Structures are given as C-alpha cells and as structure tokens.
C-alpha cells in the first residue's frame, strides 16, 4: 500500500477513536483499541481463524459451482442465437431477485446449514458471472475471426485460439466480480443460517451484546474481501500481461 491510501485508512481509524472517546460507551461503539484487543483474543482461541476458514471454504465452493455453470452457459449464449433466446429472458427475470431474498426459501428447501449457504453463495455469484461471460463472448471482435479464417483457422481451432483468448479479459473480470458477490452473499446467508463463519460471528455477537466482536467480524469481512479482490487482480494481471 502506498502512502495516500494508508493515510486515508489511518484517518478513518483516528476519527473512529475520537467518536468512541466521545461516546464513552463500548457497548454502543467500541474504539479501535478495544476492538483490536477483542480481535487478539479471538485469534488466540483460534475461533476467528475457524470462522475465516469456514467462510472462505463456502465462498470458494459456491463460486466454483457457479463458475462451472456460468462459463459453458454464458459462452454458449454469447456464441449461439438459439441459446441466447432460450435462456436470456429467463436470466433477466430471475436476476433482480437479490440473494438475501432467497434465504428463507433456501432454508425451507435445504435446512439450516451447509447446503443452504452453498445455494445462496452460488446464486449470488452466478448471475453477474453468466451475464459478464455472455457479454465477453458476444463482444469478441468479428475482425479477429475474419483474420483467423483468412489465415486458414476455422471452427474448433478458431474458437480455442481466437474466440476464447479474445473473451478472456472480460471473462476474468466477471470471475473477479462474481467472487466478490459470492462473498457478500455468503455473509448474508451466514447471518441467518449458520453457526460458524464471519456472518455468524456478527449474528452471535448481536445476541450476546458483544459489540466489539461484531466490529471484529465486520472488519475481518472487509479485510478478507479486500484480499480476495487483490489476489484476483494479481491473477488477472498475470493472464493479461500482453495488454
């Protein structure tokens, strides 16, 4: 992190300390020091790491399942008019329903636990990815295809060597956006339907009035989400170093 972003983060922490001092009630707003101590205790007994691991596992699993459907479906929609017509409207109709609205029915269908969370995560990641990947494949410049055909490269080879490569940048950005939304959806699912995970940490802290734990959960979510985005950007930069 360079100086300016670091300074802005430190400024907010300073303001937070100031507000907490004025409030003088750690039940309502624990300051950064109190929160750090709580985080330290949660790290020492290992529960914070258990929660992070639980959340990350669910995110990755759900994201991978969503990806496994979104890539072939989005790719097919981007390349074939018929597939687009079959699935396009359907996707646009279901997409506006937010993941949080799927929580009650997920609990009804899958019960409280792993399957529900996986469903919510998968649902949250799927739609932005399928639409992004569809766009990526549909917007492949026709000129690349014409150039390849004039060089004697057709059909499967054309798809593999040109279409996939031309779509790749947008496909990877869609994957990054999908991972971010998988994480957001997971916390929504965990708030209601889990005993472990960062969402559950916040939900439990609310019941026991441990506001410092609540803040630890929130900040950890921010940090983990930030880290995931950072890793995805590194992967993106590696694959697209020709740009």
């Amino acid at each position, binding site marked *: 992190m360079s100086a300016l972003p670091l300074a802005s983060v430190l400024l907010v922490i300073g303001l937070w300390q100031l507000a907490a001092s004025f409030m003088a009630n750690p039940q309502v707003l624990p300051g950064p020091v109190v929160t750090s101590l709580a985080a330290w205790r949660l790290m020492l007994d290992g529960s914070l790491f258990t929660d992070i691991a639980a959340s990350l596992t669910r995110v990755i699993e759900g994201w991978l399942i969503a990806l496994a459907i979104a890539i072939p479906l989005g790719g097919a929609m981007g390349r074939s008019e018929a597939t687009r017509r079959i699935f396009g409207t359907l996707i646009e109709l279901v997409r506006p329903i937010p993941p949080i609205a799927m929580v009650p029915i997920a609990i009804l269908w899958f019960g409280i636990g792993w399957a529900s969370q996986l469903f919510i995560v998968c649902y949250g990641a799927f739609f932005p990815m399928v639409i992004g990947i569809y766009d990526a494949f549909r917007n492949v410049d026709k000129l690349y295809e014409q*150039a390849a055909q004039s060089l004697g490269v057709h059909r499967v080879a054309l798809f593999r*060597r040109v279409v996939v490569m031309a779509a790749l940048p947008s496909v990877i950005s869609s994957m990054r956006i999908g991972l971010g939304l998988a994480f957001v959806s997971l916390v929504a699912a965990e708030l209601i339907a889990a005993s472990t995970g960062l969402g559950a940490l916040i939900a439990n802290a609310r019941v026991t009035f441990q506001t410092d734990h609540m803040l630890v959960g929130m900040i950890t979510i921010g940090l983990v989400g930030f880290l995931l985005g950072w890793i995805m950007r590194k992967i993106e930069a590696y694959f697209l170093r*020709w740009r």
Partner: protein
Amino acid sequence: MTRTAPHRTGTGPAVSTTSVPDHAATLGGESSETLIVVRDVSIWYGPGSAGPVLSGVSFAAKAGEFICLVGPSGCGKSTLLKAIAGFTPIGRGSIRVRGAEVTGPGSDRGMVFQEFALFPWLTVEQNVLFGDKASIGSLPERRERATHYLDLVGLTAYREYHPSQLSGGMRQRVALARAWANQPTVLLMDEPFGALDARTRQELQETLLRIFEKERTLCFFVTHDTSEAVYLADRVVVMHARGATREEVVVGIPRPRDRHCEIVRAHVRDVDRLAWDAK
C-alpha cells in the same frame, strides 16, 4: 517509360481487353496464369434493400499483378473485396480462385485490414506464424520463416513484442508479414494504410512494394486515395456506384516510381477524372 492511355470500357461484363476464360488454368508456376475470375457478380444487402450493392461485376486477375480498386465511398469496392475474401455472400454470379468457387473465407486469400486485426495476446512472431501454412514445420523452420518475413518488413528486432507495444505503422507491418507468411494465392487489402499518417503511409507503401517485388503475390488493394493507387498498381480499376460503370487505367511505369514525376501525376489525373467526373 510509356504511358498507357486510360482504357475505357462500357458496362459490359469484361473490363479488361485481355478477357480470359472463366475456367482458370489450374497449373501452377505460370506467370500469366489467371488466378481470380469474377463473373457477373451481384450482391444485395438484406432482404428489404432497394437495389444491389454490386450489380453484374466481372473481371479477371493474373498471377503477379498488383491491382488497385478505387472509387467513391459506397461504390462497392470494399464489398467486392469482402466477397472475394468470402465474408460477404454473393447474390448472383460466381467468384473463382484458381478455378475453385469461393464459398467462404480461406487461407488461399490473405487479408490485410485497415484496423490491422493483429491478435493482441500473441507476440509479433506468434502473429506472423499464426496461419495454417505459416505454422507447419519444425521449430527451427518456423523461426526461420518468421525471421524471413519479419526481415521483409524490417521488424526482426521486435519478434518478442506484443502488438500493444508497437506503433500503428509497425502493427500494419506485422499484419503484412503475417498475411505473406501464410503464402496466399492472392492478398486482399482493404484500405490498409487508411488509418495511418501520411509519412507512415508512404513508408508502408514502399515496404509493400518491396515485398511484392520479391514475392510477386497477386495483390488486390482497395483505396480511395488515387495517388496511392497509381503509385502502387499495375492496373487501377475505377468503380462507380454499384460497380455498374468501371474503367481501368493501366499504369505501365516501371518501379520504383517517383511520386512527383509528371508521368505519375498524369496518371493520377486520369484516374481522378474517371473516379469523380463520370458520376
């Protein structure tokens, strides 16, 4: 140096006096072999379109020729080129390359696009070796091939670069090398230097002629710049709306040509008059 007077023909099927049989010779190697025969081609865009974009166009092109197609925008010169390339289906008539009917794009007809159309995810060398014929052979053979064609365009030092690291003129040089490395029967160029500045355009024209002199591949070059056409071509075909009226100026000036000499300028005036007056 002899200047050939503009050869005018009417709206008849053949433009050239040297009318050729449509079943082109299939023997290779002959310098006068007819490679492309366009016969009575008409093209319509879409079912609701009022008239054809091209109507009853015919001509033939021989091995080793450099032909420029000029005319006002909308005259159908690019459409004709795309039809030969196999990108635009023809409504009536036929196009044959080495006697084989054109039904779609293929590597016997190389393309150079105005937008370069290089593959940005590949290096310069990988771009040059992309084609089906350019990519065959062992690694040393391919490297030698890449070196040969990159040398022709003066870019051997840039083989490991990506297109994004090159200027527009350099990118188009790579595109020329890529098209030539695949050894097409005919090279189709759709205003390839139209997006470049004047100085770069002249450099590219000279590079193009240098490769042409060496490889003698039949070249088909669409441009709206009449002086570019006269500088490059053996024959300048002037098209009018829908390709209905076509004239042809034979440029018999040996290369290298002096852009500014009177005889070249006289040819440009002839082409200009044909292109802009007879609407």
